[in-house]
């Protein structure tokens, strides 16, 4: 038996806002509808919104759900949460918010909250005439889990938004991997790649922060980590694009004190004027941007 909170049980036994919103001739009001899930997967939700055109506000929300206790409770919770919000505000409602509203959901049932969030998005995109397919970038939309028809884009998003670290968690949130299991290895890869992107984004942010600090207080000396981050940033943003345009590239290999070791690649690696390239294009730029004392060496 699942361990449900009182709120889940309350909204299951006595759901609020069930049903459809009938077409209306009220002036200034339009209806929106979003459908998500399928009978094959065992849960499906049709969300109806009544929107005040002028203010973009959700006047009423109703649901029809095929699914288990927590799917029904999540749908009902969602309709309660979005009433009175503008569509932009509603788009910010995450699956976490739905789960929190319910006082939590069993881990294995988190996908019910994801379904709520997606139906909301589908309804708003429908209303705005944006095809959902353009939202999931086509390349990234490649199917990862064919048992449940889950795309890479969807997995990436749920991993990022809920800070998931394992394939089992992904299964709990979007079901992917919960069938034959043949996609689990691919899910692991996606998690890894999301984590890497996240980490490099963090380093980048850090680089920017360091650079700003340097500009504002030039005389303050850098810590080693700050220095490396800044070198990497200057390489990536100012030096590599020039080299790549010439068919070459450079990679930071190591930093020892003021000696910056780099690996020259492509055309730069075999080019007879590579020493000059090093001195002029890389060392001078790094001296200017990071520290006068830097010496660049190729390894």
């Amino acid at each position, binding site marked *: *038996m*699942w361990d449900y909170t009182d709120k889940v049980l309350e909204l*299951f*036994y006595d*759901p609020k806002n*069930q*049903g459809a919103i009938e077409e209306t001739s009220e002036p200034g009001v339009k209806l929106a509808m979003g*459908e998500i899930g*399928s*009978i*094959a997967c*065992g*849960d*499906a*939700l*049709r969300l109806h919104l009544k929107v005040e055109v002028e203010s973009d506000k959700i006047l009423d929300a109703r649901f*029809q*759900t*095929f*699914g*288990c*206790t927590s*799917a*029904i409770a999540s749908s009902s919770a969602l309709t309660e949460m979005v009433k009175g919000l503008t569509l932009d505000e509603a788009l910010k409602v995450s699956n976490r918010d739905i789960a929190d509203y319910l006082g939590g959901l069993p881990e*294995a049932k988190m996908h019910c909250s994801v379904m709520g969030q997606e139906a909301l998005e589908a309804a708003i995109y429908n209303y705005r005439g944006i095809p959902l397919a353009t939202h999931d970038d086509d390349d990234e939309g490649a199917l990862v889990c064919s*048992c*449940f028809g889950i795309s890479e884009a969807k997995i990436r998003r749920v991993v990022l938004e809920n800070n998931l670290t394992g394939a089992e968690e992904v*299964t709990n949130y979007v*079901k992917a991997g*919960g*069938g034959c299991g043949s996609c689990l290895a691919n899910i692991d890869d996606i998690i890894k790649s999301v984590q890497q992107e996240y980490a490099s984004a963090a380093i980048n942010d850090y680089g920017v922060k360091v650079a700003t600090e340097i500009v504002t207080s030039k005389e303050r000396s850098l810590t080693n980590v700050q220095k490396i981050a800044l070198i990497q940033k200057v390489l990536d943003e100012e030096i590599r694009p020039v080299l790549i345009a010439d068919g070459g590239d450079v990679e930071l290999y190591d930093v020892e004190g003021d000696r910056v070791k780099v690996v020259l690649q492509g055309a730069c690696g075999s080019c007879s004027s590579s020493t000059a390239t090093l001195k002029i294009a890389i060392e001078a730029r790094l001296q200017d941007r990071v520290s006068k004392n830097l010496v660049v060496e190729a390894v």
Partner: protein
Amino acid sequence: MQNNCIYLDNNATTKVDSEVIEVMLPYLTDYYGNPSSMHTFGGQVGKALRTAREQLAAILGADQSEIVYTSCGTEGDNAAIRAALLAHPEKRHIVTTQVEHPAVLNVCKQLETQGYSVTYLSVNHQGQLDLDELEASLTGNTALVTIMYANNETGTIFPIEQIGLRVKEYGAIFHVDAVQVVGKIPLNMKTSTVDMLTVSGHKLHGPKGIGALYIRRGVRFRPFILGGHQERGRRAGTENVPGIIALGKAAELEMLHLEEANKRQTRLRDRLEQALLTTIPDCVVNGDPTQRLPNTTNIGFKYIEGEAILLSLNKYGICASSGSACTSGSLEPSHVLRAMGLPYTTLHGSIRFSLCRYTTEAEIDQVIEVMPSIVERLRALSPFKNDDAGWLQEQEQALAHR
């Protein structure tokens, strides 16, 4: 803890009979000797074990020397399969069905990774096997055929003896998982084609943690748990004395009640089924209408999901079970119902009611009373309603093309 529930989940487990508890208790308190000990204190326990063994052998129509105690049905299935393969190491093929219990299916899947080939026989929409398909799958390389006697989810009974005759022609060992059957339909191993048969104590009003494997005399059996010489060396480990005593008594009581319980449960089950089918639109019985356990009915309520039905029943203290994915911890709906090719509209909303000899008329009445409003309420919440609803039809069509 809810003790006054209406318990209709007897294929999952059963209540231990009070008489069973009574005979078992002294072996937890006063008579705690080890039956392998030389002294009289242990020896008197040994005598009680022999009685229990005879009681169990009687319900199977077997000889007491053909019984090996195990810790559960799963162990029985595992032991039988491994023993059969060890007996004929040169044969590398196994035949089973798509609808077996995981205690068999998961062993077969593992054996596939170890060089065995496995044929998983299909079933039709009533859950019944095709004997021609079975026949076609058998070869001289078939070491083992392992098939359940009756399915735990639908109650569909397989024609075990007809299957056995074919298996024997090919010289394979025939193992039958009879966990759902012992105590529900009469068995007689003396006239049977079955070589090994699995029993589980807690399915027949005995306790959990005790099971048995019937092994026909002469069938070569290589043990899978090694140690002392208990169970004639076929299953080492100090005996679960209270469990064995309890299983003996449980078997004796089941045998005593079998005929009358069978009739009574069939009547109650049919009444439940008929009442639900007539008062609730859009529902169907899953399983073989005639070749079926007397205590089991599996009904698919279209357009709604099983877990939501179960929780609603739970509110009235009614315990049943569902083939829906949401209750099983896995996300895929029941492999049994899927193998039967049920449409998704029915699959997710299937509920199993399984009765026992304690089930009363009043309990069945209560289910008949509350079920229509539960289904009606959930259907009112559902976006799917009848087969021509646009969204639903689109989906079933898309699935048909997958």
